[in-house]
Each structure stands twice: as structure tokens, then as C-alpha cells.
């Protein structure tokens, strides 16, 4: 394993972004993701890139908007309250069909909240990234390796579909170190004939814009965009199944919750309980198919979350109420323990879920 290095999740994201061809980073300090900015500040000047500490999250996302308008790969990162500030920009990026890569290393909320790990921005990421009808591709890493992998993937998806791809991590994923291999085949960015790089007096001017005052025109843009979203839903959903085939009880968990749940599943299996786990890797598009399939045989689902229960709604929708879905959670920066999840599994095995 000599090709692997130990890296913090935040650093893995930063290095993977550079490998993916990102040469522009804009951000504003906030715990627990500041290592990304620190890494970029050190590295970018040495490779002809640009790191700039913006005056606010709002400015940072608009600097991203500016670079993206010129067709180059660009990113920003923040944590929950900072992402809320960026939501204006996220909406404009969507309205102008600009690719962007965003990282949210979540902390507990609402308000200033705390700085310990959380998953309570699930709704914000998958439902309400900003005003208006739009979606973002939301990627949920559950290891430091995936922090890097999904960063590379995120840049490619953002370019491919001209939209925002967000890595939705949490404080644990950002701060922990695990071995990482950074050996990637990087897809070159596609041609971007729409980019505003100067006409050179050789073509009509390009306009990057999200204003369409004629409702018929604006409606058409929305319809067209949702055709694209439909295609993404059918083709880009990612997930991992763990011991699901014979499972009576199926856990739904992403990120750090999936890591904890995996320990609990192993313990429950030792005790003879048929339990498995579906780990969504994309939160949007939500991987409905494996849940629909599991609902054919599972007697109960448990959504394990570091929130008051947000993904559980998608699990309920995907399983079409064929089996009860219960919540096993901690909130405010607390993390469920494997024992807590094991208890929930046992409870479900004893019919407690009904």
C-alpha cells in the first residue's frame, strides 16, 4: 500500500480538486472545513492557480460564478451557515446553467449552532439550495478516499450537466485521516462554447444570464432543465449495498452515519439478525431503485441520521410505504453510537418498528 498516503478528508478534497484541474478557489474561513482553504492557499500560488480569501461567503460564491462564466473549473467550500449565505449564488448558478463544485462540511445547526459533525443540511442540499426550481447533484462521501473520489467525480458531473455538484460531508469526514490513493484518470473538461472569454471580434457575444422576463421563455428554460434532471436521475444515482439481499431489516445511512451503522450491522449479524444497509452515495439523485427492491423483502427500514430526520422522507418515498421506516438519530453535533443503532435494529427485529 505504498501508493497510499494518510490525509485528512478536507485535504483530500483540496488535492483531488487540484488534480481535477481546478485552479481557482474562493472561500471564507469557517470551522470545520478551513483545512481546504489552508491547503489551497499554500498550493495554488505554486501551480499558477489562484487562491483568494473572499470578504464573505456571498462574495466567494460570486467569484466562483465569475470564473465559471469563463469556462474554467472552480470551487468554493464552507460549512452549514456559510452555505446558507451562498444559496443566493447557488440559485444564480443554476439559473445561468453554470458548472460549479461546492463543498459543505456540515456542522450542527440551526443558527450559529455548533462546530461538531452534523447531517442536518440534507434538506438544504437536496431540496432548498436557493430560490426557484433547481437541483444540485449531491455527493455524500463515507471515507477519506471517497472525499477525493467524489471531488473528481463532482467536477466531471458539474461540467457534463452544466450545474452545481456539491460534496455534502460532515465534520468527521473533514477532520479524520485515512489512507488515500490519488491515482485518478481525469476526464478533460468539455468544450464550453458558451463561456464569456471575450469575442475576439470573431463571434456574436455570449451572455451568461438568469433573467428571463417573458414567463413563456422562463418556463421553457425550467422545463428543459428538468428534462436534464430527469436524465440524471435515471443515470447518475450511486449507492452501496451491504448485506441487503437476505435482509429483514434495512438501514439507510450516508456519510459518517453509514460508518457507524456498518459496525452495528456487523454486530447484529453476529447475533443472528438479518440486517443490511443501503448507503446512498448520491443524495440527489436519490437512489430509489435499491430501496424499492429491498422493500419487496424487508420488514422494516431504519434511517440513521445526524439530524432530526431528513433523509427519512426520501426513504419513505422510495419504499412507497411498503414497510415501516423508523428514525435512529442524534442531532446538534452528536453522533449515534454503534450500540444505539444496534438497539434500533433489535427493536425493529422484535417488531417494534410497527
Amino acid at each position, binding site marked *: 500500500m505504498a501508493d497510499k498516503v494518510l490525509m485528512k478528508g478536507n485535504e483530500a478534497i483540496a488535492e483531488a480538486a487540484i488534480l481535477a484541474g481546478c485552479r481557482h478557489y474562493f472561500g471564507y474561513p469557517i470551522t470545520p472545513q478551513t483545512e481546504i482553504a489552508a491547503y489551497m492557499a499554500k498550493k495554488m500560488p505554486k501551480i499558477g492557480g489562484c487562491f483568494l480569501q473572499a470578504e464573505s461567503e*456571498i*462574495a466567494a460564491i460570486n467569484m466562483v460564478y465569475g470564473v465559471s462564466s469563463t469556462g474554467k473549473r472552480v470551487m468554493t467550500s464552507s460549512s452549514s451557515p456559510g452555505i446558507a449565505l451562498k444559496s443566493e449564488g447557488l440559485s444564480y448558478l443554476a439559473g445561468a446553467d453554470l458548472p460549479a463544485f461546492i463543498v459543505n462540511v456540515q456542522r450542527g445547526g440551526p443558527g450559529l449552532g455548533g462546530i461538531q459533525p452534523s447531517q442536518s443540511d440534507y434538506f438544504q442540499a437536496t431540496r432548498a439550495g436557493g430560490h426557484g426550481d433547481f437541483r444540485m447533484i449531491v455527493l455524500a462521501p463515507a471515507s477519506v478516499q471517497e472525499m477525493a473520489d467524489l471531488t473528481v467525480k463532482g467536477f466531471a458531473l458539474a461540467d457534463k450537466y452544466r450545474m452545481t455538484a456539491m460534496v455534502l460531508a460532515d465534520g468527521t469526514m473533514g477532520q479524520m485521516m485515512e489512507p488515500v490513493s490519488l491515482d485518478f484518470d481525469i476526464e478533460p473538461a468539455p468544450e464550453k462554447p458558451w463561456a464569456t472569454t*471575450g469575442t475576439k471580434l470573431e463571434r456574436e*457575444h455570449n451572455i451568461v444570464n438568469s433573467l428571463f422576463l417573458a414567463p413563456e421563455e422562463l418556463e421553457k428554460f425550467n422545463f428543459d432543465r428538468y428534462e436534464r434532471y430527469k436524465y440524471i436521475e435515471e443515470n447518475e444515482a450511486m449507492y452501496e449495498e451491504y448485506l441487503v439481499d437476505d435482509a429483514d431489516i434495512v438501514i439507510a445511512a450516508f456519510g459518517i452515519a453509514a460508518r457507524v451503522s456498518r459496525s452495528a450491522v456487523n454486530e447484529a449479524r453476529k447475533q443472528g439478525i438479518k440486517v443490511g444497509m443501503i448507503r446512498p452515495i448520491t443524495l440527489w439523485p436519490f437512489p430509489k431503485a435499491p430501496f424499492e427492491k429491498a422493500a419487496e423483502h424487508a420488514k422494516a427500514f431504519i434511517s440513521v441520521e445526524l439530524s432530526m430526520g431528513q433523509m427519512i422522507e426520501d426513504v419513505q418515498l422510495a419504499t412507497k410505504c411498503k414497510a415501516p421506516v423508523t428514525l435512529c438519530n442524534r442531532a446538534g453535533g452528536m453522533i449515534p453510537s454503534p450500540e444505539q443503532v444496534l438497539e434500533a435494529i433489535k427493536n425493529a427485529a422484535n417488531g417494534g418498528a410497527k
Partner: protein
Amino acid sequence: MVVFDKPHALNDMPMHYCPGCTHGIIHRLVAEVLDELGIEGRAIGIAPVGCSVMAYNYFNCDMIEAAHGRAPAIATGVKRSDPENHVVFTYQGDGDLASIGMAETVHAAARNENITVIFVNNAIYGMTGGQMAPTSLPGQVTQTSPYGRDVNHCGYPIRVCEMLSQLEGPEYLERVTVNSVKNIRNAKKAIKKAFQNQLDGKGFSLVEVVSSCPTNWGMTPQAALKWIDDNMLPYYPLGVYKDRSAAKEEAK
């Protein structure tokens, strides 16, 4: 013999501005400068939210429409994407630049971001129908200050050039107006200098253009131009507020 022609950098799209509005003049001055400096093909303009929101339709260069107040941040991204080749300007009104976008304005200036800012100050929110702006004069009647701007209640108008001149960062700050032929000529000189500074790598250059809004001021265009002389200029005196290169020259 051609005695009057449209600059190449402006296209044929009919403008949506009200009769007597000075945006048309200022657009033309910017376009003439793009022509004269031969930079239309390298130029990327950032339009604001406000009356000039659709400026992106009128300039022939590449254009980006910004969220309200964020043009300097977007311009920062565009400029830094290719500092050698991109010539970047923002075109912003007073609500956009001096209210909701004040942080972006001040910090772009403090960084001496190598961009050109055209700041159109007509002391009112035009697009939304005549509300009080951060630059509305004391006592000025607007839709949201129907009894006149009461400085004890909502504070004083902001003099942007004077304020930014206190910063170490910016290269060049000048206030001009376009209410007479002479003033229009001066305005063009200032705008040209603001672009030339960018080409010379000198940094943040802002030209504040004191303008009129006959529609929302409730006057004829002629009366509005006179109102600039009588009311705006005493509060917003014309002149150069900062010119670092000139100051250095003088010091020699």
C-alpha cells in the same frame, strides 16, 4: 462623410431606458472607449440589478448578468481567470453598488482588483419605481421617503468616491456627470482612463457618473439635468478623489 456613427461595441438592440435617461449616454461613452482602445474582443462586462440590468443586451462584447450587488465579486473571478487577456468592467447603479453590494465594492477596491467600475449615481432606485437610495439626498422625496429623506431616521447619503479614497487599495476614483456637452467630454476622458489603467495593470478604477432620473424624480429631462447642477453636485462635488499614479508623478 460620416459625421455621426454608432460605436461598434454597441449593437442595434433598441434600449429600454426612459426618455431623457442618461444611461444611453453612459453606455455610449463606454462603447466608444472599448472601440478606441481596441478592446471589445477582450472585454467582459458585468451588468447589475437595477435599471441597467439588461445592459448585457446592448454591448457587443461578452456579458454576464450579476446578482444584485455582486458584480465586483464576479468581476474578480472573471479577471483572475485570465488576468493577461480579460478586460473586465462592471456597470452598476447606486442601490447595487452602494447599498446591497457595498461589501463587494469596498473589498474589490481594497484589493486594488484590476477592474473598471462604472458607477451610475442618480440618487434613486429606478427599476423598482423610485425608492430611496443610499445616495438619495437629505430631504429628497421618494416612494419610501414620502416626506423627504429624514437623516435622523434613515441616515445620510453615502459619498462613495470620498469613502473609497480613504482606502490604500484603489488606483483611481473620479466623479463626473453627463448633464452638459462639456461634462460628457470629461466623463469620457475619465472612463477611458479607467480602462487604460486596467490595461496598464494599475488596478481598481472607479468612475462615478452623477446622473438623472426624470421619470422617478418627476421632472422633464431638461429640469432633471438642471437639478443635477442645483442639488446633486453640491452634495457630490465633481473631481478626482484618488489617482495614485498621478500623485506619484507629482511627487517626482
